[in-house]
């Protein structure tokens, strides 16, 4: 008999550790022999803490479990899958799980994150083994053919970036994994680092083999202490087992990884600011060109990829580029790791093929608002993403479709708001956030964000509305076109979408005088 209780920090934030202790104590008191494992999370957070047990038919889940439920679960013989009000049935049959297409997250919640044996048994290192038998050009060809694009937000084709690094003259090159997951509403990188850390390291190693890089850096934000511990342990285990180091799996080819921790600066999620930070400097962005692929870390050719991008690579090499590209639509191939949060009944992580609509995600998987009030807005793509009204939930989740509707998919976060939201306040917050997090390098972002807060405040206070709307319009254009990076350049998105779709919230006592955002 064995039970699985998530050790994921999100699950623990709602009591998974307490449940694990209660289960162990109860089993001991009853003299029941059982194995207890700490797995990652499946991402079905409304069911956390979700306890799973092995049965002949597969994993059966119970949740959300509190310590007080534990004696009753033992009375119901839950370790053998017994009937209980909290019994959810087979994990594979939970509707919100069954409708997913898990590639990047196939092992998260399934295995103990730091078990090399379990990782191997579930297909781990098959991609690396395949890559070791391929030329760099063939690896890159497979990644390109899969259609994999950067999951951090920019959506740049991963194969093309790798090719650029491969094409640079020999010498030190670097693989940098961007795990500075600062976008509010997103938590996929954290879940994967805690739930399946080897997949990230395997992906980084394959990137190293493909581009001729022997060193990798994993940059993790300081707000993720549990993820940083998991990754440090994972690196040590792979070094000890010969998967990382001077001779990767006995191939004679070197690759190793070190963890670096951020220090509370959102801008370091931007790749050039991240490189500055890795070099020990202020996280101030660099103008491009030169691209990091040509002159990146310490002035050397560098692949900077998001955690999810790198962690998806092993599955592509193991299962074939065609199998991955078979998911998805148009130029958005494969699966999209969507993270649903905010005022939603069933928040969590849902890995779905590109092309699924926002409605299927928010209402189908998410079950609508948690408050039961009407849904008013969803913010797609983090703090720099657009606010969409309920009428636009028919938008398909794919890079181009979201962009055509005036938004951006970003890192896949979707935050739901009910009808109590004040969109003028949300627009003001977008400017305020930009002012707090601006690195200060360029004027449109550094000064524009502060002026933006002031102008929106004046609009809310009904001061000289016509003039201030025109001023805001102008300011948004300057920030969008004149900023050096996405922080200043995209902050206009949430602001202008709020103005466009929710003008009534800016009206207050005076009548809205019309603005063309």
């Amino acid at each position, binding site marked *: 008999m064995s039970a699985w209780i998530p*050790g994921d*920090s*999100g699950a*623990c*934030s*709602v009591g998974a*550790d307490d449940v694990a202790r209660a289960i162990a104590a109860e089993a001991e008191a009853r003299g029941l022999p059982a194995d207890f494992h700490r797995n990652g999370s499946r*991402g079905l*957070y*409304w069911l*956390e803490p979700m306890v799973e047990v092995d049965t002949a038919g597969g994993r059966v889940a119970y949740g959300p479990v509190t310590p007080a439920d534990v004696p009753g679960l033992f009375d119901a013989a839950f370790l053998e899958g017994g009937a209980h009000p909290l019994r959810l049935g087979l994990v594979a049959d939970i509707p919100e799980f069954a409708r997913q297409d898990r590639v990047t997250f196939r092992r998260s919640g399934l295995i103990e994150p730091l078990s090399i044996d379990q990782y191997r048994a579930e297909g781990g290192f098959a991609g690396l083994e395949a890559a070791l038998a391929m030329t760099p050009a063939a690896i890159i060809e497979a990644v390109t053919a899969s259609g994999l694009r950067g999951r951090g937000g920019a959506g740049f084709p991963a194969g093309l970036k790798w090719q650029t690094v491969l094409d640079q003259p020999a010498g030190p090159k670097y693989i940098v994994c961007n795990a500075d*997951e*600062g976008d*509010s*509403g*997103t*938590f996929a990188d*954290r879940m994967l680092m805690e739930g399946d850390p080897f997949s990230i390291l395997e992906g980084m190693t394959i990137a190293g083999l493909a581009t001729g890089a022997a060193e990798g850096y994993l940059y993790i934000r*300081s*707000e*993720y*202490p*549990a993820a940083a*511990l998991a990754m440090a342990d994972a690196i040590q285990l792979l070094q000890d087992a010969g998967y990382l180091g001077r001779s990767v799996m006995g191939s004679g080819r070197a690759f190793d990884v070190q963890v*670096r*921790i*951020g*220090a*509370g*600066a*959102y801008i370091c999620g931007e790749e050039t600011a991240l490189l500055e*930070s*890795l*070099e*020990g*400097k*202020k*996280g101030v962005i660099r103008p491009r060109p030169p691209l990091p692929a040509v002159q990146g870390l*310490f002035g050397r050719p560098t692949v900077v990829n998001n955690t999810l991008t790198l962690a998806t690579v092993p599955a592509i090499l193991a299962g074939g580029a065609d199998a991955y590209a078979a998911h998805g639509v148009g130029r958005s191939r494969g699966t999209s790791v969507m*993270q*649903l*949060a*905010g*005022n939603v009944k069933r*928040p*969590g*992580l849902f890995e779905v093929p590109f092309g699924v609509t926002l409605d299927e995600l928010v209402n189908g998987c998410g079950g609508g608002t948690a408050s039961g009030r009407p849904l008013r807005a969803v*913010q797609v793509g983090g*703090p720099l993403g657009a606010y969409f009204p309920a009428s636009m939930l028919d938008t398909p989740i794919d890079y181009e479709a979201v962009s055509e509707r005036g938004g951006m998919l970003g890192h896949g*976060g979707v*935050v*739901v708001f*009910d009808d109590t*939201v004040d969109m003028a306040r*949300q627009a003001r*917050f977008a400017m305020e*956030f930009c002012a*707090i*997090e601006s*690195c200060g390098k360029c004027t449109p972002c550094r000064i524009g964000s502060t002026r933006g807060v002031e102008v929106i405040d004046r609009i809310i206070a009904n001061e000289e509305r016509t003039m201030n709307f025109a001023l805001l319009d102008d300011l948004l254009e300057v920030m969008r076109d004149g900023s050096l990076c996405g922080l200043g350049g995209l902050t206009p998105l949430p602001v202008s979408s709020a103005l466009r779709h929710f003008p009534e919230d800016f009206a207050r006592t005076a009548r809205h005088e019309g603005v063309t955002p």
Partner: protein
Amino acid sequence: MDKATVGFAPWDAAAAATMIAEMQDLPGACLPILHRLQGEFGYIHDEAVPLIAGALALSLAEVVGVIEFYSDFRRTPPAVHQVQVCLAESCQAVGSAALAERLTEVLGTEIGGRSADGRFDLRPVYCLGNCACSPALMIDGLLYGRVTPDRAPQLLAEVWP
């Protein structure tokens, strides 16, 4: 994850110099050194600045610039407990404003300030990656989810010695 242990060593320039010497050859050593010193002493003492600058061949201004740029680094001793309340969008959508207000009442300080009894620093944070369990709070490195305003005083009481 066990509760983070709280408590720092008093400033010790010789110990700091040893730590810096151990780490100064790391590529891009400045942030790792600052993390180590802050982890040991709770903050970056002014006397650490010339030690770091000397070891890394940086100017004093460059080192101070790095310390000041990152919101995590402190130049004065912290309170015993660090409370970080998430004020980003997902938590906003489910009432983080009410949670933040309750915390300011209980601790007797504004967001960004120190509690009246000097034991708690109340800091804003823009996303803890626990958005599916919003509203979220971090106390001394330990994450809490679905934190209603009424539950906040109880959580603080748990860490109150």
